[in-house]
């Protein structure tokens, strides 16, 4: 590298830029050390750990009951999924059956949560691309409606603590279902509006087409999951490939783009847009099929216990495969926790995708992978 620059008649110095953790566009506290040749990235390194909170250790020092409340802070945009992963692992261990109504409610709220997560991604991604003032407000507007619904059943807008081991916390009122149904009716129109503004916008196409291509092999090597993987051509979606809960009863499609050379950032965008529509369809079906019945099968008490043994389960979170591995020794506290976070694996591949792209594309690429920093650092 050194000989390169000196032998050239006009040498340009390489610049090392520290992007983050206080940079406005690094989605939290990610620090990226970039080596730049002019505006071209020659080397990129993500420095993580600024938000490390020892979630696994915390879990081992709290009771099951307490840890349920903590866990949706791991990935604050899709708390339902982390709760669900924990609950499912514990249920696998404990052997407790979940009532069917609870399963339906779980699917409804987690698909709602998938929509909110994708909507937030959509808004912030457009901010990353420079549409600062207009468009980003529209997804947030729809997200607010869903958050209101969350607030009604779970008590809070992001830290739900709704899905519990053995069921769900609260049965929503009939009015709640009506409102949700109204939302699912109007939401596809809103998605049409987003698409009218963004999808075929020539500047947006220029910024995203052919940028940050992720070949399938590379993605598989790094363990990338979720929409980023599906945009590259693999149809891994745990809802279909390893069906859990009531997903086998539902009719839905896993969107995959057949891209032999690998998906670019636009593919990841369009895939998430399609998932927005698909999740709405799933919610509609669930609303039609939801039976009456109990919602909880395990007593939620402070000293709740789970049978001894090892359990693993994974759910398909908006960012990919979210796995939870637990060892219980039969006491009221879990013995060992291990989380398999999708963001961690997805972030790892970003460094490879960045090399050779200009500064402006860093955010286009990094944003398109949809990384949540607390999920990376745990």
């Amino acid at each position, binding site marked *: 590298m050194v000989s390169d620059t000196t032998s050239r008649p006009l040498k340009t110095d390489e610049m090392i830029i520290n992007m983050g953790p206080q*940079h406005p566009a690094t989605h939290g506290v990610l620090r990226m050390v970039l080596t730049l040749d002019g505006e071209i990235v020659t080397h990129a390194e993500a420095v993580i750990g600024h938000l490390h909170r020892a979630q696994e250790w915390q879990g081992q020092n709290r009771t099951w009951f307490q840890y349920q409340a903590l866990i949706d802070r791991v990935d604050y945009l899709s708390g339902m999924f982390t709760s669900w992963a924990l609950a499912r692992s514990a249920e696998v261990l404990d052997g407790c059956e979940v009532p069917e109504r609870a399963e339906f409610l779980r699917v409804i709220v987690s698909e709602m949560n998938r929509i909110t997560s994708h909507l937030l991604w959509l808004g912030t991604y457009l901010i990353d*691309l*420079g549409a*600062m*003032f*207009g468009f980003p407000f529209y997804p947030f507007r729809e997200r607010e409606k869903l958050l209101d619904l969350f607030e009604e059943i779970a008590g809070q807008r992001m830290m739900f603590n709704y899905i519990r081991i053995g069921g769900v916390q609260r049965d929503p009122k009939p009015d709640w279902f009506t409102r949700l149904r109204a939302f699912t009716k109007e939401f596809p129109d809103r998605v049409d509006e987003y698409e009218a503004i963004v999808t075929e916008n020539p*500047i947006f196409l220029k910024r995203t087409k052919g940028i940050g291509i992720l070949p399938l092999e590379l993605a598989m090597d790094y363990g990338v999951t979720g929409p980023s993987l599906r945009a590259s051509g693999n149809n891994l979606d745990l809802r279909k490939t390893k069906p859990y809960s009531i997903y086998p009863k539902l009719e839905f499609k896993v969107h995959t783009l057949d891209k032999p050379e690998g998906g670019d950032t636009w593919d990841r965008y369009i895939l998430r847009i399609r998932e927005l529509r698909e999740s709405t369809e799933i919610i509609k079906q669930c609303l039609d099929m939801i039976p009456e019945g109990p919602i909880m099968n395990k007593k939620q008490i402070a000293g709740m216990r789970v049978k001894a043994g090892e359990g693993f389960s994974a759910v398909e979170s908006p960012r990919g495969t979210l796995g939870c591995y637990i060892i219980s020794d039969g006491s009221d506290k879990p013995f060992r926790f291990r989380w398999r976070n999708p963001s961690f694996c997805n972030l790892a591949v970003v460094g490879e995708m960045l090399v050779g792209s*200009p500064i402006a594309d860093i*955010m286009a690429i990094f944003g398109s992978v949809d990384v949540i920093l607390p999920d990376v650092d745990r």
Partner: protein
Amino acid sequence: MIPNAPEIGKLLFIICFWICAIFLPVWLVSWAVGVLLPMLLEQGSPSMAMTATAETLRALTPIISVMVFIPINAMFMVLYERRALALFTVRLGPNRVGPDGLLQTAADAVKLLFKEDITPRGADAFMFTLAPIIFFAPSIFGALPLLAAITNNHSLYQITNLPTGIFYILAAASLPVVALVMAGWSSNNKYSLVGGLRAAAQAISYEIPLVLSLVTVCLMAGSLDVVKIAQQQDGGILNWNIAGGGALRGLDKAIQTKLGVETTPLITPQQSSDPTETPVAAPTTFEEVIHQYYPFEFLSYISAGVLIFCSFILLGLYLTGACAEINRIPFDLPEAESELVSGYNTEYSGIKFAIFFLAEFTNLFIVSSIATVMFLGGGDNPIPQWLLNKMPLEPIQKSLGAILSPFINGLHLIDPDTFWAAFWVIFKVYTFVFIAILIRGTLPRFRIDQLMDFGWKRLVPLSLIAFLVVVFARVLVVCHG
């Protein structure tokens, strides 16, 4: 009917209020400095010193009015932008300070003025301070020639009327780039440096289509003088440069002849200089007038159409180049928030930042007013004069004149020509600003290399082609100029 009617109403109220708040002081100050004080000084038998003072005051009127205008206008534009963006994003916008948020930007300005003025360690302090000044100064003296153009060449502003007006404005508009590079370099910050370099690269590339489009308009008009260009376009929308640079003027005249409206005898330079064509003694019929303006029958009609198309392209080119020149979205790369934190003004705070902010909005206004003067006929009424004459406006005008005549004749308080010119200019300019805000609310940002590609590979060839086409098409049609 419209669920958002109250908010739209509030925005309109804010616009009306602020336009009054902008133009009342400007007009009062310029009247006081340019008319009242000299009049008082020259009463009776004035001494020479008094005459000299009066003359100096008259000469200083344009610059004083601009100095009064710029800060108030920038304040309004910030609020206008924020409220309009709020409308687009189904929000309310600033509504706390003052009624409906009228004083929001005033409060913000006061806050900025009282903030600490920080010079970062390792920065070149002199250059760091000089940069905002250089950025701001051209927006004051660059706007001066426009004053004469938008006030119907009012006698007070004639002093700023330069024979190379548009060129002067362009030269002034190219200066802020130096300031951006200076700010970026002297801040001792890598993001700032990259922002400054981007600003320079972008401005140099986009100045070419910008200048070429304006040069083409000057070619249509046959003059570099903005006042001349503005005056040429008098007489309704068909005479404006947007309608083919006067390619429809013949149609306008022909309609007037058909309607039997008293028309001014037309004297075009082409006719007088062309020896083959004998000057026609006032054509009387529709066909004759058409033939006089479109001498080559079918070819002329086609070229008139081409001219109209070209002038729309030129306006588009100009607006694109201007957007890039003043760093508006989608060309706001020098201060790309998600990439370069805030680009060249990352390290600025307090009043220096306020000056950068102020100058950006002033530049937006100036760019819009250039577009107004060059393409939309300056202070001209869009309704053609013959149509106005048909309308029953006579009694209204008379009664208004009777009321206002003491002010007009005695105190020179209102000049009807200037007033209506100013009204239309304001309307057109803020329409352009509204379009800029709408674009800001919709489009994402370009990438720097795409920006360069777009500038050099699309806009520059397009502007050259438009230039050539206009040169040839113009021969076949008798335009103004």
